[in-house]
């Protein structure tokens, strides 16, 4: 993990200057996903850039969440799911049997559709990940990790006086930021967000979007969203999925102004989906 931190600090300054041509963080090659006999993802290849926000859009059931979950092997927890293809992250194929999904998930954090804080204190919510991965030795170091994570998630000022209060006592938007802080606490490199704002009101959504924009400077973020405006606001790259296939992938600006495919055009203009 120390290596990763170094990596971040080293590249931080250059990331700002050179966001457009950031290196490839995740390279997905020929991914197929089956749920039992049903094929959910058909031969998707996609390259995700580091230190940028990539949005997945598409109608319900198009496979965007399933594809997102391939990147931290969350699909392993679904018994009937079968994933084929290769996903390279920093040169290593994460679908390789030698890769432990548990370790992978500490490098690829995830934020879910509904805020799902543990029914524990705010402090313990953040400290849980670092604790099981042994990222902090001693109380002081752990306090620092918790404070840093909450600061990065923009929640510190709101909760610093009530860290022992249960995480579930926060408002929906705060809970979602708590979940983001929890994901950040294990110092991941990639953060996957599965419709993180779908259960939030517009004000909370605006805060999360602001936060995503800030986090982009340090992390590779992939976000699944149903809101076209959100994708346009926060992402640099957008991928449009339909019926388990990747229809179009490119710079967000181009996708929203000048899509190559008719289907993409239809979807973003609201003609279907």
């Amino acid at each position, binding site marked *: 993990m120390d290596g990763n931190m170094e990596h971040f600090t080293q590249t931080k300054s250059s990331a700002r200057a050179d966001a457009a041509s950031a290196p490839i963080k995740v390279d997905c090659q020929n991914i197929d996903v089956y749920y039992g006999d049903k094929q959910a993802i058909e031969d998707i290849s996609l390259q995700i850039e580091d230190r940028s926000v990539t949005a997945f859009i598409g109608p319900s059931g198009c496979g965007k969440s399933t594809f997102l979950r391939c990147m*931290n092997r*969350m699909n392993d*927890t679904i*018994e009937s799911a079968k994933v084929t293809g290769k996903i390279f992250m920093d040169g290593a194929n994460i679908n390789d049997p030698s890769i432990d999904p*548990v*370790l*992978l*998930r*500490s490098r690829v*954090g*995830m*934020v*879910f559709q*509904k805020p*799902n*804080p*543990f*029914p*524990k204190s705010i402090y313990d919510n953040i400290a*849980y*990940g670092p604790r*099981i*991965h042994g990222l902090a030795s001693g109380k002081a170091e752990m306090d620092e990790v918790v404070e840093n994570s909450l600061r990065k998630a923009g929640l510190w000022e709101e909760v610093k006086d009530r860290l022992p209060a249960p995480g579930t006592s926060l408002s929906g938007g705060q809970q979602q930021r708590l*979940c983001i802080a*929890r*994901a950040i*606490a*294990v110092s991941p490199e990639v953060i996957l967000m599965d419709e993180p704002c779908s259960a939030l009101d517009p004000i909370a959504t605006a805060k999360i979007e602001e936060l995503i924009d800030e986090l982009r400077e340090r992390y590779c973020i992939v976000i699944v969203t149903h809101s076209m405006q959100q994708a346009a606001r926060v992402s640099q790259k957008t991928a449009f999925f339909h019926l388990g296939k990747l229809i179009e992938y490119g710079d967000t600006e181009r996708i929203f102004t000048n899509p190559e495919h008719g289907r993409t055009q239809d979807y973003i203009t609201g003609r279907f989906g």
Partner: protein
Amino acid sequence: MSSPTEGTANTGSFVTEEALQRLKKRHGAEARFKLYGQLAIGIAIVALVALLVSIFGQASSAFSRYVLSYDLNIEASYVDPDGTRDPEAIARNVSGFNLMLQDQLADEFLSDDANRNLRRELYGMFTRLAVLPIARATADAPETIGSEQIFNVALADDIDLFLKGGVSARKSIEIGTVAAGDGSTEDGVTLTLASQDAAEKLGAALTELTRTDVDDAPAVALIKAGNTWYRMEASEGRNLSLTYLAGPRALPSEGAAIEALILAQSQENRTVTDRQIAWTKILQTQGRIKSVLNTSLFTNSDSTYPELAGTAAAIVGSLLTMLVTALLAIPVGIFAAVYLEEFAPKNRLTSLIEVNINNLAAVPSIVFGLLGAAVFINFMGLPRSVPLVGGLVLGLLVLPTVIIASRAALTAVPPSIRTAALGVGASKTQSVFHHVLPLAAPGIMTGAIIGMARALGETAPLLLIGMVAFVAEVPDGPMDESTVLPVLIYKWSTGAERAWEPQTAAAIIVLLVFLILMNLIAIILRRRFERRW
């Protein structure tokens, strides 16, 4: 629906006659179902109240008991004939103490020429083992030998029952004073009442209490004149011919008050004789009969005498059995549930196991008893009647209940908690033990304790593994012969003497208290965990 100004105009358009009819029907149906629900609750409450009232009503008499406070002269010749003052020998010399009590009672209540039957009647007022605590107390303090000590001697169950108002319907009346007494206590006394009214009052009471539906015998009148008790054999006008029962042998003096105790049943039909009643009454007048808390109900073990029988051995036996049951059923049940719910692949084998667990929960408990007898006793060679075997059988019995309750509790934990834990890089085991199990704990606890409560009340399987044995000693451990509360209740309820009835009810209350305690623990545990999580 509509604003007041345009109300009537709009009403007709959508509130048609049929719609109103349907609405009325729906409201009627709602009211009916509400009524059914309230009726059901009402029936349940009435049944519960009836049960509790009947049990507590019956048991109330068992929680107190009558004893004779008796000045006993501890004579060395009876209790320590060898003069060794050895506590063990003294404690074992129950018959010596018994003889001493009997002789001292005879000295006080009987003339020297009293025959065996009279003696037996007197001794019958006390249990043979009533001297047991006296023997123990004397053994603990041998220096008391030779001095006079006051002891509470337990009265026989029938006398106790009589004092508590049982044995026979009765009525006590005052019938004026003595006008004249004639005859002798040996050959019969003739007593003349002072007034004709009193004689009529006595006659009326006798007729009132004569119960032709119970037996053909007329009611019996026991007459107390002065301090002497007689039985009335016949009456003619104001003259009563009496037989002496107990008390001073002097003829009743003129002007002495007369009381009559009318008993519905003659002594052939009851367990307490007329003379025993007379003795009891005399002792009561002397203030020597006391009602004390029946501590022996909790401190004694089973006995063939209901007045000495207690639940101590059964309580300890039940606790030991529950301990074994808990040690088997709770960990095995929880781990089975966790594996099936969280780790097991969903295939044909696991669904077969699931179906069978559900089926096992419905297997009659007596079948588990047979299984226990066959496997633990015959095959594994464990001893009969021990809490270990009982606990194992009950553990198997409640295992499916615990598994089902634990699985339900695990299923109720939202999947988002699992994904959240996995999302920060927890392993499957970590997500289960750090997050899912603690959240499911209150439900699992409740299920486990309800299962234990079921095991606590279980009788049938324990009968089959021999836990119905007569156990007079508190068991020392799970390999010691013992019995359990429900079996004790079953055994006591089959006792022939009337005194077992309140005793049984009292044991039921002890069992209920245990069950309520367990449920209380379940509630407290649930509350604590819910606050923490």
